[in-house]
């Protein structure tokens, strides 16, 4: 609960600041389309994406009930994504910043990246390699799944990260 916490400066008037911490909890439903992705990941360790009936493009992350390009109903044509590809682009966090999902300041050691999957789809995910000096655009990577069935059911996060593979 809030408390008066005066900030006394060396000189000058005293100003009162009051800190208030109340995490706002919420429930967020995946809906049918994202739910299908969750189901396939949990049950079958597969990553799927819907294909637009008009433009035939795959909309992986997140799947949309309406095609963002054509504005038609997406339908229910699901395609399995290959989970190998190359690193198209990556970045890495240096400075710890506040994460509202966790309620603390931290710096994720796993670099977020855009991976060009072998079927031409761009997929955003984390990389396993935390030593950024070892990373280079173009390296081949492969998804690493959470093997424990009980722990899966987190959707895209059922893939822990993408691991560099030698080829």
């Amino acid at each position, binding site marked *: 609960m809030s408390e008066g916490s005066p*900030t006394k400066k060396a000189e000058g*008037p005293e*100003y009162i*600041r009051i800190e*208030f911490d109340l995490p706002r909890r919420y429930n*967020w439903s*995946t809906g049918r389309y*994202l739910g299908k992705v969750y189901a396939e990941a949990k049950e079958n360790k597969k990553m799927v994406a819907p294909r637009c009936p008009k433009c035939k493009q795959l*909309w*992986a*992350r*997140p799947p949309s009930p309406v095609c*963002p390009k054509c504005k038609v109903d997406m339908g229910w044509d699901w395609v399995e994504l290959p989970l190998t590809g190359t690193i*198209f*682009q990556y*970045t*890495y*966090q*240096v*400075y710890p*910043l*506040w*994460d*509202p*999902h966790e309620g603390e300041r931290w710096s*994720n050691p796993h670099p*977020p990246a*855009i991976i*060009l999957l072998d079927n031409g*789809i*761009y*997929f*955003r*995910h*984390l990389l396993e390699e935390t030593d*950024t000096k070892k990373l280079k655009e173009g390296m081949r990577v492969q998804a690493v799944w959470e093997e424990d069935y009980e722990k899966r059911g987190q*959707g*895209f*996060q059922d893939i822990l990260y993408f691991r560099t593979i030698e080829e």
Partner: protein
Amino acid sequence: MAGRVAIVGVGQTHHTSRRDDVNLPEMVGEAVRAALADAQLSIKDIEAFIFSNMEAFEGIILPDHGMIAEVGAIGKPGLKVTGGGTTGSEAVGEACHLVSAGLYDITMVVGWQKHDCGDATAGISAAAVPTAAKGMVVGAVSEFAKQALSYIRQSGAREEHAAMVRLKADRCACRNPYAHLKLGLKGLEDYLKSPYLVWPIRLLDFCPQSCGACVVVLASEERAKKIHKKPVWVVDFEVAHQEPFSAGSFGDPTGTETYSQDVAAERLYKRNGITDVRKQVDLAEIYEPSTWEEMSLYEHFHFCEKNEGWKLIEKGVTEIEGEFPVNPSGGVIASNPIGATPVIRIAEAALQIRGDAGEHQVTRDVKTAIATALGGPNWTAMFLLKRSL
């Protein structure tokens, strides 16, 4: 627009990182009083209020409800706009609609953000849909890191160019009494000492979180001419929204996506017969969250050819004394109270048109100006302002 609308008053607070000496409503009240003084109006003359703020970034709910007395809005009609980075410009757009439609003669747009209350990066990270993007998005910083990488790859720009953008912004900010960050940077060495936040974005590459408010007063044509000697006409504005792309809202890796900046610029320029921006427009106050994005925006808004944005900065074209000044106020990189920032772009462009910008008044005579706004996931708002119709 049907009826014509002009800006007849602007007011800002001195943007800074922390304001302990005032509570939030009082800070906003300062800008309201400054705008009323500039317009030489009394609070009684204001007929409707449009509030512009991103409350999540302050970590509270409905701060506007608690400031009605301080803003002078008791009993008056109004509405609030919350639209990400473009909030302020959409609010000004709304106010223009109300005046242009003949519903009110004089409206006031009140934009503010008191970032010392909360954390904008946290707010933006919370905007990422948790089931699809959690853990991928670190505020706006990670998104602009991706943009920077894409821009470097496509255009060949280098860190020296990002440094030049920051140095220009700082030189301008040091001449603007209202700007937040006046760092007195000397050169590339200062830039290179700056730590990385999310590579390749350095602390100096990115906009701050400022406490500040900015207010503009808008009036119908009939009233505007009686209120202010130098009304600034809002000739046109355009807003374009954009869906997040498959892999990057600000830097598309496929190079095939359409950006909202291109759509908005094309529509606005076509409607107003602008075919050569650098000749027909005298100044631009653009919304650049990062140094790299500023170079990219030069291209999107047709200030130069594609992939040549970094050349403009290299040649000094966009300096205060330059041939086509951009962001003489210091831009978003120097001051960023998010809810107020787009309002500041419009207010600063108006001051330049009036010739009232003081030390940061540009050399070129400003008869026509553009003010833009940018918000996640890459929405664009563009305003066209003129000295005379």
